[in-house]
């Protein structure tokens, strides 16, 4: 059988507690991604989506640990040492970060920041790598790329900085691109253009994309498949169209209702009551049970298992199959 590009199995992410104990932030995580495929990961702040992407990069903070398997082209990244991971980062997996302001080194020209990986990882000369950086800046539609490659990040706008971030991630032609909230910090008008650039480049290079966002609109535009996370758990997965039009999990329905849209007679924007529980104060049973409008007593009993309705469609909810919400 064909090995998928990325396969995550039984992934759990723990944080060291102050008293020496460990607390699970993410549990029972699994996903597969074929080459060239696009997957959107959606969830509120605190759902564990950023930690998941850092775990794939092997860049979790010191107090955070991951168990399970993250297989990239069949090799388990969690079993690799840092030296081996260095040849994966950048070359096989590129990452775009949320804050274009802080993600770039203020004391290095943007051209050198793009060229650096090619010099250190691929052994290009600085001269050749800087030329390549200008080509990359051109590809992310940076005007006057040759001149701007010699400037420092503070001289660029937010949208331009994020294009530099994309060029850095793209420099070594990775097979997988992970974008963690790439447009959240940008103005709305700039968001659309940055997404457009990202989508074009991904198609040209045949890259797979994992796009992490809290914004369902962004995911709907960019990704063929969607995975919904809540409090470190998979809640629902499927083709984006199915998840958005026929959600199986009450949490997904809540998210969809909370998307602002033009209302016919000026109704109020709906929200999901309450907030994501901290990983220490998770309710018994289903992690969404204390906020769920459709809960029944059985929801508080056990954590619902992950079930597959049809191939490629999964859900974690005891009420998803059979009885509908009353």
């Amino acid at each position, binding site marked *: 059988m064909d090995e998928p590009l990325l396969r995550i199995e039984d992934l759990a992410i723990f944080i060291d507690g102050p008293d020496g104990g460990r607390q699970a932030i993410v549990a029972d995580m699994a996903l597969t991604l074929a080459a060239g495929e696009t997957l959107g990961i959606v969830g509120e702040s605190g759902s564990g989506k950023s930690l998941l992407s850092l775990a794939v990069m092997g860049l979790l903070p010191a107090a955070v640990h991951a168990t399970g398997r993250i297989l990239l082209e069949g090799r388990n990244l969690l079993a690799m040492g840092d030296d081996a991971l260095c040849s994966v980062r950048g070359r096989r997996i590129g990452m775009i970060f949320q804050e274009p302001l802080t*993600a770039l080194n*203020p004391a290095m020209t943007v051209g050198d920041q793009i060229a650096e990986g090619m010099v250190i990882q691929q052994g290009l000369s600085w001269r050749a790598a800087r030329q390549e950086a200008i080509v990359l800046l051109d590809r992310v539609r940076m005007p006057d790329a040759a001149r701007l490659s010699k400037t420092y990040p503070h001289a660029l706008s937010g949208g331009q900085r994020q294009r530099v971030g994309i060029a850095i991630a793209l420099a070594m032609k990775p097979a997988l691109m992970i974008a963690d909230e790439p447009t959240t910090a940008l103005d709305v008008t700039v968001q659309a253009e940055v997404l457009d650039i990202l989508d074009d480049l991904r198609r040209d290079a045949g890259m797979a994309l994992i796009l992490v966002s809290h914004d369902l609109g962004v995911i709907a535009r960019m990704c063929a498949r969607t995975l919904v996370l809540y409090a470190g758990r998979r809640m629902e997965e499927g083709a984006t169209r199915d998840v958005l039009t026929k959600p199986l999990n009450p949490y997904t329905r809540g998210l969809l209702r909370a998307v602002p849209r033009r209302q016919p007679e000026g109704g109020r924007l709906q929200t999901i009551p309450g907030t994501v529980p901290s990983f220490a104060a998770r309710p018994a049973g289903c992690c969404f049970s204390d906020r769920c409008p459709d809960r029944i007593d059985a929801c508080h009993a056990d954590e619902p298992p992950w079930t597959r309705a049809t191939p490629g469609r999964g859900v974690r909810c005891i009420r998803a199959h059979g009885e509908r919400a009353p």
Partner: protein
Amino acid sequence: MTGLILQRILSLVLTLLAVSAVIFLVMDVLPGDPAAIMLGTSATPETLEALRRELGLDQPLVLRYLAWLGGVATGDLGTSYTYGVPVAGLIAERLAVTLPLAVFAILLSVGIALPLGVVSAARRNGPVDYAAGLLSQMFIAVPGFWVGLLLVLVFSVSLGWVPSGGFPGWQAGLAPALGALVLPAIALALPQAGVLTRVTRSAVIEVMNEDFVRTARAKGLPRRQAQWRHAVPNALVPVVTILGLQFTFLIAGAVLVENVFNLPGLGRLALQALSQRDIIVMQDVVLFFAALVIVMNFVVDLSYLALDPRLRTRA
């Protein structure tokens, strides 16, 4: 940017002017009549008066100050009361010892502190970090001149590797001259290195948590390269600030250390001039020290522009 530099040069001149006035006033109220010390106790009031007139000491304070200032401005630093030679030549001769000593000490302290601070930051709370912490506390706590004496005891008296003091002069060749400066430079550098190590460590630790270091790691840079190429350059501003402040202590330390090692430097010249009430030499040397410190601060400010491109466009 040129506007900023010109502005800084102007304030540099004004500061020096103020400093010169303070120096002149302090020297004037210093007890002890230079003429009396030069002529000894047997001098008659007439000869004393004649010498005072010759030295210009009978003039009003303001006139004497302006005469001195005018001389300094035109490069004439006056003539030493005790040596009878132009002070400018005297300072130049002594500077040939003190300046290499200071540069040597700075290089040593940066050469020790930067790697030690960066490694401490990388292995935070590990054995290397604790050892480095202990070492730098020791460097800070122990006075430089005492370290000097200890070094003499070990490396000259017991081992006989380097001379215990004195300076053969640069005409004796590079190796003997540098050899004579090794121990004094170490004695000067260690306390500075202690402070600088702590500052480097905390600055690098802070920058290591910045997002752009993670971006560098995401490009596949090994931890050490991400640290040296991205964290360290961004941690240098506080390090250079402290280095500039330490320069003052370096000069003060040079006065002590030159005396411990019997080096014919500016510090010793200042001390000798003080004990002999060679006021003109005192004034010139102290003004020279002040100018050095002020110029050093100017250099530190300029280095910020080199280290942080954000300041360049704002300036």
